[in-house]
């Protein structure tokens, strides 16, 4: 039953009392019970809490007091601190951590009546592109190749969120995107995901990876669903100095605007060498769809694109090395007892952090070190400014950009595992927008030769998510993407 609904249609069904939030929530909990042993999208499921919230929602609906999300069962990436509910960031070092506070984004959703099913798996501290770096085991993509049942990755770092939404374990989910962690898993799992403009959603209460890049955003099975959820998540928050004091627009209305008269840029630098022909073809198809709906396609250049990935892998680890210093075994989380302070740090952090996190802390520490700072961190900041300038200039000529989301469809668990750089290449199309802070959405647009979903990425101006939603909705409409993953709840389940 759960996949029959979208967030929007479930909302309508709740408001017209065709279904109760308790029924809807129970159906999702049943999906989780049936599917999650295979997919492992959840770190923590909170059925009692969810049902209590559902009952409260039903009571509110009975009184005719429906908020934008009232009674809708959704799930939360396990980097959002949730009051009284374990928040791990998929790390052993936070395994025993129960926050005494609620993140602003999840507070906003609770304010709007959402029902939380539980906390979703991710790459440890959101560092990864496959959700294979979780201390609590990998998440499996609900999609499989037509010709093989080898387990595929859901992408990352918000792999649990994408897998849960794609398979019908949640109507929608939150994610965070630092270099592509919403858009790439959305593409791999055949759903919609948007990283809004940096500053649109508050980072308060989100376990930090790279503060200047981290941004929360929604996953949904439709563009409209992400528009509904983002409308609730977003908004200025005085508790986050980098959150921007701007009103939250009506994203749902924006998604209905259409693309007539819009100028859509095609950045030539995204024609990466060795790009699979089917992705190239899908991209061309996407441009055609937009042209047919009245958009003008313009070739543009983002000359510093090629430095994006290298720059990102300096800036993000640098910030991470500092952000993760607080996990020291002194005040909360894991502590490995030791005889002195130095041993306490070393043993706690060695036991608490996984390999990829340790690698990034080392890289970040290195690029900030005396003697290397200028050559790495400072230079990366300069290049970052150039990347931002590329986008600013191009957006004086076009209203949005269209690119592929990722250079491939979902790959098998274990592939790329031996080579971190190969893994990092998954982010090649998503990272530049993160560096510039502009909004980006992945929309499922087609299937590859193995029957796996492929997404197209729409990038927009700072704080112009509205155009991104309009373009995303136009692609969605033209693509008519109806594919369903192999691992999902069947009819009537």
């Amino acid at each position, binding site marked *: 039953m759960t996949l029959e609904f979208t967030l929007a249609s479930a909302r309508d069904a709740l408001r017209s009392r065709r279904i109760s939030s308790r029924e809807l929530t129970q159906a999702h909990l049943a999906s989780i019970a049936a599917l999650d042993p295979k997919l492992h999208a959840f770190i923590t499921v909170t059925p009692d809490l969810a049902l209590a919230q559902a009952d409260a929602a039903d009571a509110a609906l009975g009184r005719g007091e429906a908020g934008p999300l009232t009674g809708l069962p959704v799930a939360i990436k396990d*980097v*959002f*601190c949730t009051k009284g509910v374990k*928040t791990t*960031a998929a790390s052993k070092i*936070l395994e025993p*951590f129960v*926050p*005494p*506070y609620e*993140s602003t984004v999840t507070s906003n959703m609770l304010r709007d009546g959402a029902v939380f099913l539980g906390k979703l798996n991710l790459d440890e501290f959101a560092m990864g592109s496959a959700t294979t770096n979780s201390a609590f085991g990998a998440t499996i993509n609900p999609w499989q190749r037509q010709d093989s049942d080898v387990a595929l990755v859901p992408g990352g770092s918000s792999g649990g969120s994408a897998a849960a939404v794609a398979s019908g374990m949640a109507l929608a989910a939150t994610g965070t995107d630092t270099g592509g962690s919403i858009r790439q898993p959305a593409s791999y799992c055949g759903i919609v995901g948007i990283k809004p403009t940096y500053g649109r959603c508050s*980072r*308060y*209460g*989100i*376990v*930090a990876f*790279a*503060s*200047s890049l981290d941004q929360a955003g929604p996953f949904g099975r439709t563009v409209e669903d992400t528009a509904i959820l983002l409308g609730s998540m977003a908004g200025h928050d*005085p*508790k*986050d*100095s*980098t959150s921007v004091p701007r009103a939250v627009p009506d994203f749902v209305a924006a998604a209905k605007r259409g693309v007539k008269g819009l100028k859509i840029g095609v950045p030539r630098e995204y024609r990466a060498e060795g790009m699979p022909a089917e992705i190239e073809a899908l991209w061309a198809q996407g441009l055609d769809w937009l042209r047919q709906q009245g958009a003008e396609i313009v070739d543009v250049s983002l000359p510093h694109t090629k430095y994006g990935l290298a720059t990102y892998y300096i800036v993000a680890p*640098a*910030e991470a*090395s*500092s952000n*993760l*210093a*607080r996990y*020291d075994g*002194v*005040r*909360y989380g894991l502590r490995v007892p030791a005889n002195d*302070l130095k041993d306490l*740090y070393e043993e706690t952090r060695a036991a608490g952090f996984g390999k990829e996190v340790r690698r990034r802390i080392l890289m970040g*520490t290195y690029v*900030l*070190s*005396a003697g290397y*700072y200028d050559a790495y*961190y400072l230079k990366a900041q300069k290049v970052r400014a150039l990347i931002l300038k590329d986008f600013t200039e191009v957006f004086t000529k076009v209203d949005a950009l269209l690119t592929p989301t990722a250079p491939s469809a979902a790959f098998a668990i274990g592939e790329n595992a031996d080579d971190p750089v190969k893994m990092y290449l998954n982010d090649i199309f998503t990272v530049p927008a993160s560096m510039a802070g502009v909004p980006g959405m992945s929309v499922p647009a087609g299937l590859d030769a193995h029957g796996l979903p492929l997404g197209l990425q729409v990038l927009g101006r700072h704080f112009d998510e509205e155009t991104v939603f309009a373009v995303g909705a136009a692609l969605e409409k033209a693509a008519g993407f109806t594919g369903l993953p192999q691992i999902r709840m069947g009819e009537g389940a």
Partner: protein
Amino acid sequence: MSYIIEGRTGPWELVIGLEVHAQVVSNAKLFSGASATYGGEPNAQVSFIDAGFPGMLPVINGECVAQAVRTGLGLNAEINLVSRFDRKNYFYADLPQGYQISQFAHPIVGKGIVDIELESGEVRHIGVTRLHLEQDAGKSMHDQHPAESFIDLNRAGVALMEIVSEPDMRSPEEAGAYLRKLRTILRYLGTCDGNMEEGSMRADVNVSVRKAGEEFRTRCEIKNVNSVRFVMQAIEVEARRQVEIWESGASVDQETRLYDPARSETRSMRSKEDAHDYRYFPDPDLLPLVIEQAWVDQLAAMLPELPDAKKARFISDYGIPAYDARVLVMEQASADFYETLAKGRDGKAASNWMLGDFFAGLNRLGKGIETSPISAATLGGLLDLIADATINGKIAKEVLEAMMETGESAAAIVEAKGLKQVTDTGAIDAAVDAVLAANPDKLAEYKSGKEKLFGFFVGQVMKAMAGKGNPALVNEAIKRKL
């Protein structure tokens, strides 16, 4: 005469610079809403931000920024309208985030000047390099348990101003005068309580020595010295240590040292090789700190009168010597006391009485001006009785002593003890006659030319009148009778 250390190889000059950490007076901490007041049960004034919890973010406290700007203005310094916060990364148990938020590359306050006055009366200008805002760390306690250390985070995140001087000081006296002057200015501004015992003001002292005319030699930094006296002592012993090293043919290593007042020595804390690599970088959780010139102007317009200006005004308005004015303005409370006292009275008499018998009385009682048993108005009552000749100066000292003991007014004491000055010439004449009659030998000596004996007669008459005779009238009567 400049301060030098005489070594075997000749005279050595000292070069001193101070980095003063001044705790900002504010209700809340620099980046969290937690209380910034001193004291409190351990860990009672800690927010999740201060404790470095996951996902917690700093938000700048505008009042702390205002305090830094006021201080910058008080130090005649450039105010930087755009400044920035950086992270200074290092691990320590009482540093919850694993970094201190500080201003490394772009401080809020730039170059300024502090004028100091030495005992000789010479005024020297000491350059201020910069002032920046930063967070304090918590406190580690290693003596509470045999095997474990305890951490108190009440202080973690409290706003500090680090005020860095140029290496402009050349003697312990100058360093002491600078520190005292800085403390006076901060207290006037109300931006730091300057309480070194409670640690709300601490100094890192940079010391090097050199021969006259040389470039700077290697310096050592003496960390966390917590009194003016210790700063002066530490400079002296450190300078002597360095002179000995240079004169033995070795060289001074740049390092961080600690001053041990009990043994009167400095000890190495860590050398340059073990120095932390703080990996400073701009804090991505905070936007650049941008302030408006109009706001700075507004703060400037509301600054209180500062010690240098007050001193100049006291000299010109009340006609008191520079020395008196300098002592009076050292504490805002003394200056205020003086102004109340001097208003409508003889300014010189007021400063004499205040700096003399009144301060001596406070000292005797172990009290400060804030806890004085008598107010400025009460002390003024005494001065008024002197001015209108109700009592003489000698009796006044006695009255003041009684006032300090009891807190009563001068008039009440004079009345109760019957200390009113005798101006009745008949009574004075009678006393003079009696004294002359009782001392015929002294009278004869006086008349034969021993004029010094005049004082003896005055003393005897005053004694006979229990000190209450009007001195001028007594003098006059004796002169007449003799």
